[in-house]
């Protein structure tokens, strides 16, 4: 498994993927952070679905990590795309047969791939955290928002908590992408179905059907990222979303182990 992990890192480090991921993470984090701070006085709101997050809330110890947790959903979509593409491309390039010749244990291939992509997700989330905190200070200065509470131990604890939650959510989205990659064996199909499911199907149904978000992994992962909300607890969101994901992963792992490699 360690050999698979090292081999996968060689692929993940390629400049085309690294640079595009850095660009995507920078764009997503920059967009969410700038909207949160620069629209603080906008009557249309600066949060999700028109919610207004005022200066008093942003000045709290949790204010420094607020934009970071708000970016989790979009970071998750980036992770979903990367995990799905990295998995499904082995079928489209025909490279899966090379991998299996050098490592016949299909479970080791899967676990090694997952491990390396988790490390990639950690790098992504760390970059996003650094950018979110830096931009928060920058925009707080621009909009005259007090940052006194951001340097307190409470703020640091909130930032660490948020980092862990965003990481759990991002990896969860990535696992969802990996499941789709193994299932559809095509990066385009896996990514498009994953994005449509998360952004459109889950999003729309959750907006119109009360409490249905309790059963959608994507919605639950975004709740994990913000540490739970008044309707769905953090524990429920974490265990239910990961139960869905692990069940899905077990099914596709079984298929991956049994399926003939004929391309």
């Amino acid at each position: 498994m360690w050999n698979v992990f090292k081999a996968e890192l060689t692929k993940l480090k390629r400049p085309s993927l690294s640079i595009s991921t850095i660009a995507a993470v920078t764009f997503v984090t920059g967009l969410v952070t700038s909207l949160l701070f620069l629209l603080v006085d906008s009557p249309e709101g600066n949060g999700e679905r028109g919610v207004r997050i005022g200066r008093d809330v942003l000045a709290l110890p949790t204010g420094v990590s607020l934009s970071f947790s708000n970016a989790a959903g979009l970071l998750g979509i980036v992770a979903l795309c990367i995990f799905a593409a990295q998995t499904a491309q082995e079928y489209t390039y025909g490279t899966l047969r090379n991998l299996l010749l050098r490592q016949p244990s299909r479970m080791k291939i899967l676990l090694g791939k997952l491990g390396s992509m988790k490390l990639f997700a950690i790098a992504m989330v760390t970059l996003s955290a650094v950018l979110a905190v830096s931009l928060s200070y920058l925009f707080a200065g621009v909009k005259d928002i007090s940052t006194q509470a951001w340097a307190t131990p409470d703020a640091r604890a909130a930032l660490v908590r948020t980092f862990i939650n965003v990481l759990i959510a991002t990896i969860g989205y990535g696992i969802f992408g990996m499941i789709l990659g193994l299932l559809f064996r095509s990066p385009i199909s896996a990514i498009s179905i994953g994005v449509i499911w998360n952004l459109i199907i889950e999003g729309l149904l959750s907006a119109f059907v009360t409490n249905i978000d309790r059963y959608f992994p994507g919605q639950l992962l975004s709740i994990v990222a913000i540490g739970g909300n008044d309707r769905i607890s953090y524990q429920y969101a974490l265990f239910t979303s990961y139960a869905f994901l692990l069940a899905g992963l077990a099914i596709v792992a079984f298929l991956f182990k049994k399926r003939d490699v004929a391309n």
Partner: protein
Amino acid sequence: MSSPLALDVADLSKKYGDRMALSHANFEVPMGSICGFVGPNGSGKTTTIRMLLGLITPTTGSGHVLGESINHPEKYLPNVGAMIEGPAFYPALTGAQNLTVLAKLGGFDTNGIQGLLDLVDLGDRGNSKYKTYSLGMKQRLGIAAALLPKPKLLVLDEPTNGLDPAGIQEVRALLRKLADNGTTVFVSSHLLSEIEMISDHLVMLRLGKVIFSGKTSELLAKQQPVIVAKPENRADLEKLAKIAEAGGHSAKIIDESVHVTGESDFSAKFNRAAFEAGITLESLTPVRASLEDTFFEMTGE
């Protein structure tokens, strides 16, 4: 005592739905030989190779690679190098990076990569992205990847596809050298003249069935040699054919020549009989059947 086997399969079959891709195949490949694996498109060559390498599960039958059951590919794959259905690599990585991925995966020494690139004449293009490679270069990289584990058994599916004549000659020499050093080479190709030149063993497939398995020389020896006689005067073609038939040999007129079935020692007798009948021969050539002729005759293609 029989020589040890690099490959042996018994009653090996693979069925996809109602279609039998390979039907009850039986063959053996001795250790250290170069074995050609030939058959028309869709005859089951790649299916067989995939089963031998653990990529697909047989429907029935059994097989062994380097003495280990094909149900446990993890036991023999570290000693097997293969290129199946052409090269497959990551387009955004360089040739060297692609080999590094596979070397790390198999736990092989990455220090030997430049040497392998040099061996397949890609030494100066190892740092170019795979997507910029020509078909021939991709093929060479595929061969380099197959050589990564310093294999005891090398399985190559159409290794000369896309190579120019010089490249084909280099691959032929490389395979011969590997076999001389004890590597068993199992090579499928549609270039039958290539297979005839390099292989000492042969497995021939048609419609998912093994129609020949054994030494190449044995197969070719089964074919009747032919004497091709070309008369100076084309009007003598029929007369010439009758002379051959009178000597107890079958004869066919093809284009401007008479093709007579018979060993080369009949040539002198035939020439004398033609001369005595007043026929001057422009040429008289004994021709031994090639693998291609044999293949077409056996497969009915």
